[in-house]
Structures are given as C-alpha cells and as structure tokens.
C-alpha cells in the first residue's frame, strides 16, 4: 500500500516541478524576463506544496486505514474470541498469513470470513488512500499553476519551506531524546507499580529469573539493584585503574614531549584502538584474557572465576584509553603556553613544569575527561556481556564473577518477552538508571569543561 502511494507521490512531485518551471518559463518568454524568482523556484514551490499535502494525508490516513482493516477483519471473526489482546493478535496474525498464502493447515470458516473481510477492507483502503492522495496532489498542482505570476515570490516561499525542513531535521535529536525518555520511563513506571522503588534501589538481591514461575515460593523475584551497581562499579574501577594512568601518561607524552613525527605514529595507534568494535574486544577478553588470568591465578594458588571481573575490566580499560588520552590531550594543549614559559623561566625542568603547573591548570578538564570515560565504561555492553558473568554476586573481589547493569538488560530482553512481567519490565528500570547516570556524568563533565574554558578565554 505504502509503496504505491509513495510512487504516486514521487511522480506527482516530479510532475509539479516540471509543469511549474515550464509555466514560469513560458511567462518569462511572454513578458521578457521580468519574473521575481527563477523558473526552477516556481517548480520547486509547487513540488513542495504537493509533497506537503500528500505527506500530510498519508500521515493522517494510513494509521486510520490500518485500524479500519484490523477492526473489519476481527469483526468478521467471532467477536467473543477477540476480547483478549493476545488472542486478537494471534487471530490477526493467522488472518494475515491466510491472506498472504502462508497459513499452515486447514483454516476454519470464521478465519476464512476474517480473511475475506481483511482482503476487502485492504483493497478498499488501498483504492481510497491512493485515490485521495492522487486527487489531492493533482488539486494542489492546478492550484499552484494558477498562482504562478511574474510577481510570485516563489523563491522566498520555497526557502521558507526548506528552512522548516532543516529545522525538522535538527529536531530529530530532540525527538530521539524524548523517545528514549518515553520508552524507558513508561515501562519503568509499570515496573515500579509492581516492585517498590525502595526495594529496587536498596535491595541486596537480584534474581529476576524466579519471576517466571508464578507457583513458586518467592515468585515475585528479587529486584535489588545493589549487586548490579557494585558489579558495574567494580569493573569500571578496574577499567579506570588501567585507562587512567595509561591514558593520562600517553596524553602528557603526546602533548608535551612527542615530536610531530612520533605524534604521527602514535595518534593512529590510539585511533585504531578507539575504532575496534567492542564485540571484538569482548571476544578477546572472553577467550584469551580470561583464560590467561585464570591460569595465572591458579598457578599462584588463587581461586579465579572463569568469568572474572578482572578480565572484563582490563580489556574495558584498554577500550577507554583512547577516550582518556584524546580528551586529556586536548585540555593539556589548551593550557596557555605563557604558564609553561613562566615555569621554565623560574628554572623548573619540563617534568616539574608539567607536574606543578600544567596538570594543576588542566585538572578540571582531566577530571571531566575521566568522568566521560567512566560513563563510557558504565554503558559499555558487549565486553561485559561476553566476558563478565550473569550471577549477581555482591562482592568486591576482582577475581570473582560479577554482573553489570548492561549485562542484565541484555539478558532480560533477548529472547522471548512478555511485556507484563516484572522480569522484562525491570530491564527498562535498569535502562532508566543507566540513562540518568550517564547523563548526569556527562552533564557535570560538560559543565566543568565549560567553566574551565571560560577561565582561559
């Protein structure tokens, strides 16, 4: 249905452009070139009008048509079966399969009736929608052609339209944020109507799986987020212990010591590291680093879990080195040269200058770089999905298996889902926590950087 509609739309828009431009060109020929706008703008003006009108019709009418088809089809089937949402969906799927010729087995008579109603409603709306769109498009073309006059400010009108299109495109970012908020908040709200937020935020036990079986003791499941937070923080801390020093020292070296030639070699290394997909790092963590750590630990007589927090943390640290180093590099470079020159004039060596003058001056920026890196580590999914465990152990032992917020979101939502169980909904509550945590970190980091920039501007 949509394919035909958009084909008609494309043809009419093109026709509008060609006709409009031709009409304007004709006018110019008659009048000797006294048009306000170039002929092409007249064409574009009408084309834009057609596009707007037909898109508006589609946006309004298509969902209505869909609704009409569904209600007709389900109305033809016995209405008593169509009370339950689940059953309605199943019936609808059967009908659609029957219409498409994919139905397995012999359909019942009611199903056949439903399919017939579905087909007739579909063809009705097909003709209705396409006819309406075509009529509207043609009407707009005739209206526009009638409006074309030498003094028509077609360019200004069209540019006005373009400006709104540009604005709409940049509003997509805002819509995305709103979409994220809506989807996460709505489902999380449903979750919090089943589980109290206090239990969620302060509970020490996380075992959503038990919620599957309603007849069991403790069937409500335990949704205490504390073990997840502790696990996430444990892995993040390990990652920052790796990425902090390594990233900061490479940034210092790159900004203060490295010759342009060395920079030209080292910068790509860090860029390559930043460009490696996390699933690759996860594979490396799970199949190479984790067994290595386990083997080393066992030879030292330590009890190391095969999915230790250490392996995931180490590799994640490697992943965020480029973030730390490139952000720190920027802020170190932003420290005015006069501060360094002053320090050298006092007789300080280069390292003394860096330690006593440059780093203190760059400290706010470095702190914000670390915060951005932490938010990156907290939100990272694949490395921990592949290398960290699933069991929510409340421990700070880096050799034990812990789980993280992102791992749990992934585990809860991959596979079959029921959107009324607390188990599935809890993933959205975790998403909400994750979203606001990273947002807060980023916001603070950005504010720090802004204030710091003002200091030296």
């Amino acid at each position, binding site marked *: 249905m949509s394919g035909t509609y958009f084909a008609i739309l494309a043809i009419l828009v093109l026709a509008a452009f060609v006709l409009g431009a031709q009409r304007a060109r004709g006018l110019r020929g008659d009048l000797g070139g006294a048009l306000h706008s170039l002929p092409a703008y007249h064409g574009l003006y009408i084309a834009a009008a057609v596009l707007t009108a037909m898109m508006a019709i589609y946006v309004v009418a298509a969902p209505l048509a869909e609704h009409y088809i569904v209600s007709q089809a389900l109305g033809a089937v016995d209405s008593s079966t169509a009370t339950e949402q689940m059953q309605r969906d199943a019936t609808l799927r059967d009908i659609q399969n029957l219409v498409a010729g994919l139905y397995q087995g012999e359909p019942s008579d009611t199903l056949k009736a439903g399919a017939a109603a579905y087909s007739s409603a579909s063809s009705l709306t097909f003709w209705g929608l396409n006819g309406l769109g075509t009529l509207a498009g043609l009407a707009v073309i005739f209206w526009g052609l009638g409006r074309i006059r030498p003094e028509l400010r077609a*360019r200004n009108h069209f*540019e006005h339209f*373009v*400006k709104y299109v*540009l*604005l709409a*495109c*940049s509003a997509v*970012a*805002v819509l*995305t*944020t709103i979409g*994220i908020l*809506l*989807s*996460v908040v*709505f*489902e999380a709200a449903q979750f919090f109507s089943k589980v109290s937020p206090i239990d969620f935020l302060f509970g020490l036990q996380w075992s959503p799986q038990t919620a599957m079986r309603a007849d069991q003791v403790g069937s409500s499941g335990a949704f205490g987020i504390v073990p997840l937070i502790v696990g996430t923080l444990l892995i993040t801390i390990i990652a920052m212990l790796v990425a902090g*020093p*390594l990233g900061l*020292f*490479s940034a210092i*070296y*790159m900004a203060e*010591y490295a010759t342009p030639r060395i920079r030209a070699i080292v910068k790509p*290394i*860090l860029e390559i*590291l930043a*460009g*490696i*997909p*996390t*699933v*690759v790092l996860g*594979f490396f963590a*799970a*199949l190479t680093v984790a067994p290595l750590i386990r083997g080393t630990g066992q030879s030292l007589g330590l009890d190391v879990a095969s999915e230790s927090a250490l392996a995931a943390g180490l590799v994640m640290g*490697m992943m965020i*080195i480029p973030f730390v180093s490139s952000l720190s590099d920027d802020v170190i470079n932003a420290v005015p040269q006069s501060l360094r020159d002053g320090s050298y004039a006092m007789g300080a*060596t*280069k*390292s*003394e200058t860096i330690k006593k003058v440059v780093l203190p001056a760059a400290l706010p920026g470095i702190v914000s770089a670390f915060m951005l890196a932490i*938010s*990156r580590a*907290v*939100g990272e*999914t*694949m490395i921990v*999905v*592949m290398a960290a465990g699933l069991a929510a152990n409340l421990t700070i032992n880096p050799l034990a298996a812990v789980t993280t917020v992102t791992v749990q979101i*992934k585990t809860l*939502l*991959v596979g079959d889902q029921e959107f009324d169980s607390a188990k599935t909904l809890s*993933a*959205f509550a975790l*998403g909400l926590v994750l*979203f606001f945590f990273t*947002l807060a970190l*980023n916001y603070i980091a950005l504010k720090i950087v802004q204030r710091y920039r003002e200091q030296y501007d």
Partner: protein
Amino acid sequence: MTDTVIAAPRRLGNSDALVARRYRSERRFKFYGIAAIAVTAVFLVLLFADILAKGLPAFMEHRLTLPMKVDQAAIDPQNSKDPKVIRAGDFDGPIRQAFRDLFPDVTSRADRKKLMGLLSSGAADDFRAMVVRDPALIGHDAKVPVLMSDDADQYLKGRQTGVEKFPGIGTMTAAAEGEQFKLTTDAAALPTPGDIVRLNGGAFRVLSIGNGVLLAEQLTAPKSLAPAASGTWDILRFTVPESSRRIDDQEALWLEHLKEQGLAQSNIAWRFFTSGDSREPELAGIRGALMGSILTLLVTLFLCLPIGVAAAIYLEEFAPKNRLTQIIELNINNLAAVPSIVFGLLGLAMFLNFFGLPRSAPLVGGLVLALLVLPTIIIASRAALRAVPPSIKEAALGVGASHQQAIFHHVLPLAMPGIMTGTIIGMAHALGETAPLLMIGMVAFIVDIPGSFTEAATVLPIQIYLWSDLPEIAFQSKTAGAIIVLLAFLFVMNAAAIMLRKRFERRW
C-alpha cells in the same frame, strides 16, 4: 600570617646532586609516558596477533577428493537430465560408499559410524552442485570434492594435537599375546607409552615398556605378523593425550592415512563467504550476516546522511540564537554520550512495540543505528561547514545570491569532503555496533540470506557474538575469521575516509 616559615636558603654545595636527581626524575617521567604508549601498542599487537592466529585457519577447509563413478541409478535413473530431478537425487549414499571403500578393513558397525563422522553432514552439497552444473558427468568417472567434518578439519589443520612421526630404525616384530600384542625391536629409540606403532598395515598403541619389550593393544589389524624391516614401520606420537581431544587415536590414524594418500587437501574455504549460518561449523558462513549488515547500513545511510547534513546546516547557518537552538545543541551533545544499549531499548519499546515494525528486520536495525550515529554526523558536518571560510559565502551574497543559495550552491559543495569523511567514520561505527541490535531481536539463528529490508536478518557483529558463545572449537576459529572480515571492512572504510581527507583537504 604569623606562622609563615621562611625556608632556610639551600646550601649551594648540594646543587650538583640536586640537579642530578631532578634530571633523573625528568627522565623517569618521560619514560612513564613512553611506557604507557608502549603498553597500549603492545596490547593492540597482541589483540591482532591473537585474532589472526585464531581466525586465519577459518579461511581454509579440508576436502577429500574421492575418485568415483557418478552413479546414474542413484541420481537420475530415468536419464531425464532435468535439474529438478538431479537435485533430488541421492548424492549422500554414493559418497559414503566411496569413502567406505577406502577403508575395507573397517567392518564393525560402530567403527563405520565413527568413520562416517569424519565427513561433514553437508558432504554431498558440493557433489550435488557439481552434477547440477554439469549433468554430462552422470555415468562417468569424476573426482568428487567431499567436505570433512569440523573435528577432522581441525585435526588436519593441526589444531587438535601436534603429531610427531619417527621412522622406524631397526626391525620391529609384533606377536600376539592374549588380547594384547608384544612388540620386540632392536631399535635404539623406543616409543613411549601412548605412542602408536604402525607396521604391516596395522597399528598398535603402546601400553607399557619393559626390557625392550613393548606391550601394546591393537587398533588396526596388521596384514601379517612378519618382522618389519627398518624403514617399513614408523611411530606416531600425539602431543595432546587422547582424552583431551575430540579426535581419538583410531580416527587420527584414518586421517593420517588419508593425508598420506594425498586424498585430503587444504583448500580456500569460499564457503565461508557464500553460505549462511549453520549449526555445523564446517558449513557455516557469513554471507547472511554480511547481507544483513549491508541492508542495515543502507537504511542507516539513507536516513542519517540527509537528516544529519540538514541539521548541521540549520544549526550552523540558519538557527536563531534562542532557547530552542540551545536545547537542540545540548541534546545532540548528550545523545552522543548515551550508552548504545539505551538506543536498543528505544528501538524495542518504540519501533517494535509501539509502531509494530517487524522484529529482527534490517529496517529497524538501520533506524536505531541512524539515531545512534546521527550526533556523530551532525558534529562532523558542522565542523566541515565551519571550516569553509566565510569569504566564500560573503562573495556569493555580494553578487546577489540569497542566503540559501550561498549555502547550497557554494558552501555545501566545499564542505562535502569533510562531511563524507565524517559520514564514513559514522558508518564504520554503525557497522561495529552490536548491543542495540541485540535488543531488537537481530540475534536470531538465521540460515537464509536476507533479501529485503523487512526480512529477519542478523549482522556481522552479532554473528560474531553468536558464534563466540558456541562450544565447538571450530566455531571459535570461525568467530575470529568473521572478526577479521569485520576489521577488514572497517579498515577499508577508515582508509577511504583518510584518503578523502588527504585528497580534498584544502588550506584556505
């Protein structure tokens, strides 16, 4: 201020030592920087070396070349030459028969089953394709390629165990002693327990050694028990004990036999690129995932390039300095830092549950990834637009162009290389993204190659994730192979971005 302590002036006599210490600390500090970079580089090298070592064997596979007659009765009894009939013919039976004929000694049911286990369950596919392509082969002799099972393949690649072969020096005699055999030799170098002695067409596994006499059990019956002269017998030693590999000694002996006969060869595994996913490691390929990735990225590109560039133009050139603009800018910066899995939640709740778009479809994956990389593209495009000197725009305005004409006719074309660079980098990011696509169900086991934007599909990173979870060693190798392909794509994309930047970079 009363407790200010005035430091005593430092004695000049110490200054040499002090200077030396300060220089030492200077060198140390510089060393830390070099060390940090070196550790990072070493990690990168280790990562690549590990993946190459694991993944390169995935691009090779072992096939048997079985000389056999293409049997008319089994394939096309009515001689119809109809491809449909040929395709439905029995190709498995003849292959199995031909393979069994290579080992006439193997008679027991259990052993035969074990022998057949060396062949892939899809062994007949190549044969079928060959005959369908060339029906003239029916009734003639042909050399038929037969795919080996993943375990056999791994063994032949030397990834199950190392094999050492020692030629027999001296005479070796085998004599039956009850269930077992006694091997006597005058050789100086004796086998150790666990080794396999092959003589007179039979094979014996050494159990124990005492006084130059080897107690052994029979794996394959020898043709005779006559003394074997120097050079006619040999010793096989496996570096990995039988209990910790998936190919036992008997199977290993068969495979060694095939290798020595020159029947098992290593070929390039084009299958890896031409077939979809499979439960059998030797049959699994990445074509489905590659197609899924391409379809998904097409959707992403067609959405986020126009929207991203339009947004960048608006924000850079037309946006009034007001609250709405501020909100949009803040939003873009924040979106760039939202964890990717949260975009997956958006896709699941909005696109799948609310709008009812199909699960696992490249369309939805592309939508989610477009939203994910949109900030990257907007930021890169804005930088590219800003890099075009204002004099260009002013000159256009000066000769009477409207603001939009100046931007679209003059500034945008000059900013295009920068925008394309940013777009390619954004696409590379999208290609490697996994987590949000897991959320929208692109994680299913999909054998068919997806052909449209709404069919169920998976993408390359998710194929990697799925394979990495499987227990078979061969899948580990496939995983690393898929990673190599993914990294190659990323490398090409980034190289293209760098070329573009170098080629069109202008100093104004």
